[in-house]
């Protein structure tokens, strides 16, 4: 869960999103109305009145000059050429409909080129047709995906999108020359505390911004002021560098104690380049050198031996960490080491070790319903080396934890986090010294599952065969372009490597697919097409016959869509099935055909064998309801044969040699597939999820154990990837000085890709 700076990043991200979505004529979210595709040919709507024209670009990912791409501009461009174009409240014409589609495509192609390279798809649709009134609406759905080709050594994919990438949102926010943001916070320990964040940008190489965060509670407060800069070094081990220098002052309660910290600091940090496209694994490291004072309000005599109430402070803090993401999982692990003294000499008087890890997994239960699991583990130990330890340096737990390096963008906990206890109130056993721990452990678990959601991409688009196959075409073409681009890079293996690969490894896959002794794929596929034809034809006729009866037609259309899915994948298998005679020369595309058949590009563009199997499975209910279960079982048997063949080919692919260029290109293609998968299968424009929370924390206080656990429930409201959590966490076994529990209110941005 994020801190306040995350909140501002988030606000920016959401505002940016709405700025895009609300631009007239550019992009609109479905406004709760039921979009109904009209199934007839466009020609049949000639002479109908156009009630509305919409551009649905709510999943457009590349940067655009929004103003230049509005609908009126596109219409004006078509008119300037002397061509017809459709307009609101005018009569529909197929030519005008197509001319506007071409113009949108031309405008957006130019925008795509300005992103470097990529794929763009446009799907025009006639929706909400009213045959009686002679009215229709027109919608152009757009998807754009940028990626890079042709840059030496970088088969990379980037999402410079408006709102789905928090990094970009943060960069945009940093560009504002001056910001002043007042805020009001609340914590059970501190009460209400007003605060302000000020940020001033500079255009020098060394210092790029000054940041001041300050809040005040009664008594006490926190002040952080720093000058900071960063640079993109772009070498493998140091891809990005950051530095900060400043001063921080904190006066915070910890039960009866008050913890006072006064610190001057200088920090440097770096991160490595992601070790595969999309940032699947990268490392972060840094060091901070600090000097100042540490004090508490407790008399020295009340503290145990080896702990002092007030002293000078000097420290070197070092940390290393890694963050990895794979499909719907991410893991961040950090280790921090603090070597410190009390300001009297250059000895290390004490040291602190911190281990901190956080895992997030999203498990897709159904389309657009992910069970989200957050698990955090943290542990720390404070050890005396030569002398005393300031009491303010001990570990204190609660629902707000000071970070190991305050203000650093790489957060590391510096104490046990437990949401049911107010800040710093986990500070000792029920009967014993409440002076903070010399070691701690904590675990936090959060589970949430959407119970109400509205998909970012409506089903009628995300399940539309034309869109899915069109995207498959685009991804396949771009994947080919990337491979070809890599082959041409200096120092890459020459074409012989590919020729050998195709003549041996790919040829072997072709032989397996063409081995009819096990499964005759084309015969099975044709049999499936023939078997479903009567029901498919009947449904198509019924859909036509129920034109105008919205509910009846919607149900039939949904069934027909399932049949079209099976037929579509079957036809694709026939189209892509490799010819043994054409698989070994450098220019052939058999490799990509097999990729489309058995591997696919993520769940949004599944392998054609997978698509047909899933399609047949989804027809079970229809056949059962019609009393045709025997027929479905035949279909299922044939789908099983195709699945078995797919498994055989996949096994062989795993044993294949992989050319180096393929290894460079695959992560990019996989990342594109993952992005589409998130957009098409997972992402909601808005969702509501119940949340369960469990926390357990233990402090070791001079040999005494102070442990507690919290159980809580709440709700998560999500707007795209912006999550607000609200709930309450209870203390089932509370200490006498602890309250029954605490309210939980936090925000977060999920890194979706």
């Amino acid at each position, binding site marked *: 869960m994020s801190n306040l700076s995350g909140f501002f990043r988030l606000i920016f991200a959401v505002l940016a999103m709405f700025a895009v979505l609300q631009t007239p004529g550019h992009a609109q979210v479905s406004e709760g109305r039921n979009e109904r595709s009209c*199934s*007839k*040919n*466009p*020609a*049949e709507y000639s002479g109908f009145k156009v009630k509305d024209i919409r551009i649905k670009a709510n999943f457009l990912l590349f940067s655009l000059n929004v103003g230049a791409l509005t609908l009126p501009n596109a219409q004006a461009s078509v008119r300037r050429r002397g061509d017809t174009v459709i307009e609101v409240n005018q009569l529909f014409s*197929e*030519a005008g409909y*197509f001319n506007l*589609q*071409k113009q*949108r*495509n*031309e405008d*957006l*192609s*130019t925008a*795509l*080129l*300005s*992103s*470097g*390279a*990529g*794929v*763009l*798809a*446009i*799907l*025009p649709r006639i929706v909400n047709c009213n045959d009686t009134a002679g009215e229709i609406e027109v919608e152009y759905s757009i998807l754009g995906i940028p990626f*890079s*080709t*042709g*840059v*030496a050594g970088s088969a990379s994919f980037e999402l410079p999108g408006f709102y789905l990438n928090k990094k970009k949102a943060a960069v945009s926010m940093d560009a504002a020359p001056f910001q002043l943001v007042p805020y009001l916070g609340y914590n059970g320990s501190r009460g209400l505390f007003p605060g302000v964040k000020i940020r001033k940008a500079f255009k020098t190489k060394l210092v790029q911004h000054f940041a001041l965060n300050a809040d005040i509670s009664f008594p006490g407060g926190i002040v952080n002021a720093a000058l900071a800069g960063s640079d993109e070094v772009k070498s493998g081990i140091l891809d990005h560098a950051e530095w900060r220098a400043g001063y921080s002052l904190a006066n915070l309660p910890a039960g009866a104690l008050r913890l006072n910290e006064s610190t001057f600091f200088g920090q440097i940090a770096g991160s490595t380049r992601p070790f595969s496209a999309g940032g699947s694994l990268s490392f972060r490291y840094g060091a901070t050198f600090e000097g100042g004072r540490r004090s508490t309000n407790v008399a020295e005599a009340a503290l145990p031996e080896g702990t002092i109430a007030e002293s000078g402070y000097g420290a070197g803090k070092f940390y290393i960490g890694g963050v990895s993401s794979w499909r719907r999982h991410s893991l961040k692990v950090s280790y921090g080491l603090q070597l410190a003294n009390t300001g009297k000499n250059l000895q290390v008087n004490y040291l602190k070790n911190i281990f901190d890890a956080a895992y997030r997994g999203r498990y897709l239960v159904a389309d657009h319903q992910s069970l989200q699991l957050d698990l955090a583990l943290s542990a720390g130990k404070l050890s005396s080396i030569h002398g005393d330890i300031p009491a303010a340096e001990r570990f204190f737990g609660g629902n707000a934890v000071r970070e190991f390096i305050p203000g650093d963008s790489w957060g590391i906990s510096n104490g046990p986090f437990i949401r049911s206890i107010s800040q710093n109130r986990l500070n000792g056993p029920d009967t014993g010294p409440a002076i903070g721990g010399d070691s701690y452990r904590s675990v936090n678990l959060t589970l949430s599952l959407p119970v109400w959601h509205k998909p970012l991409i409506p089903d009628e688009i995300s399940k539309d065969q*034309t869109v899915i*196959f*069109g995207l*498959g*075409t*685009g991804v*396949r*073409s*771009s994947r*080919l*372009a990337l491979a*070809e*681009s890599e082959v*041409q*890079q200096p120092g890459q293996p020459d074409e012989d490597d590919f020729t050998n690969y195709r003549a041996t490894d790919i040829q072997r896959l072709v032989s397996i697919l063409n081995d009819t002794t096990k499964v005759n794929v084309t015969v099975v596929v044709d049999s499936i097409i023939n078997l479903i034809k009567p029901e498919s034809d009947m449904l*198509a006729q019924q859909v036509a016959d129920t034109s105008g009866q919205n509910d009846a037609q919607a149900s039939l259309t949904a069934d027909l869509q399932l049949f*079209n899915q099976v037929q579509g994948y079957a036809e*694709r298998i026939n*189209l*892509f099935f490799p010819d043994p005679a054409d698989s070994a020369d*450098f*220019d*052939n*595309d058999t490799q*990509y055909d097999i990729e489309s058949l058995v591997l696919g590009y993520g769940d949004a563009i599944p392998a054609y064998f997978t698509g047909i199997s899933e399609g047949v499975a989804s027809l079970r209910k229809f056949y059962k309801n019609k009393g045709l279960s025997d027929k479905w079982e035949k279909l299922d048997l044939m789908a099983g044969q195709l699945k078995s063949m797919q498994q055989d080919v996949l096994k062989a692919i795993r044993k294949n040699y992989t050319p180096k260029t393929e290894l460079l290109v695959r992560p990019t293609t996989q990342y594109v597939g993952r992005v589409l998968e998130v957009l098409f299968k997972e992402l909601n424009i808005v969702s509501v999820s119940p949340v369960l929370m469990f926390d357990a924390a233990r402090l070791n206080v001079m040999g005494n154990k102070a442990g507690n656990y919290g159980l809580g429930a709440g709700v998560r409201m999500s707007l795209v990837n912006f999550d607000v959590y609200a709930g309450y966490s209870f203390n089932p076994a509370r200490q006498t000085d602890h309250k029954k529990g605490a309210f939980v209110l936090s925000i977060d941005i999920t890194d979706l890709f």
Partner: protein
Amino acid sequence: MACVPFSITLAVLATDNKRQFSFSINKGCVEEKPVYVLVFIFRDRNELTDPFQDRVSLQVTVGDTDSPKAEKLIARGMNNAQLAYLKGPLTNIVEDLPPTGGAPSNDPTALNAASQILNSKPVLPS
């Protein structure tokens, strides 16, 4: 099955980072029949630090006889030979045309060359 309009575009940056093109295939439905329009846009720059300049675009309306080929291109995507043709021979022809600032060119040789992309192994027309 009803005719379904669709547009798909691939944009590619050449390995020298100085030339860039996009290729689109637009499928429309006019008078209950599919209509296909191919669009090839070429941009270039002299130095890596310069912005790209729109040079020439080609727009080819596919005739009835080539419609199945256009449909196949939409269904399968580009193959190696077609991509190589766009990046090589066709780009070379367009580079030699007088700049139109991105406006459609009516050079018959270039338009004829662009239409050849529909063939699975396109070659320059003689």
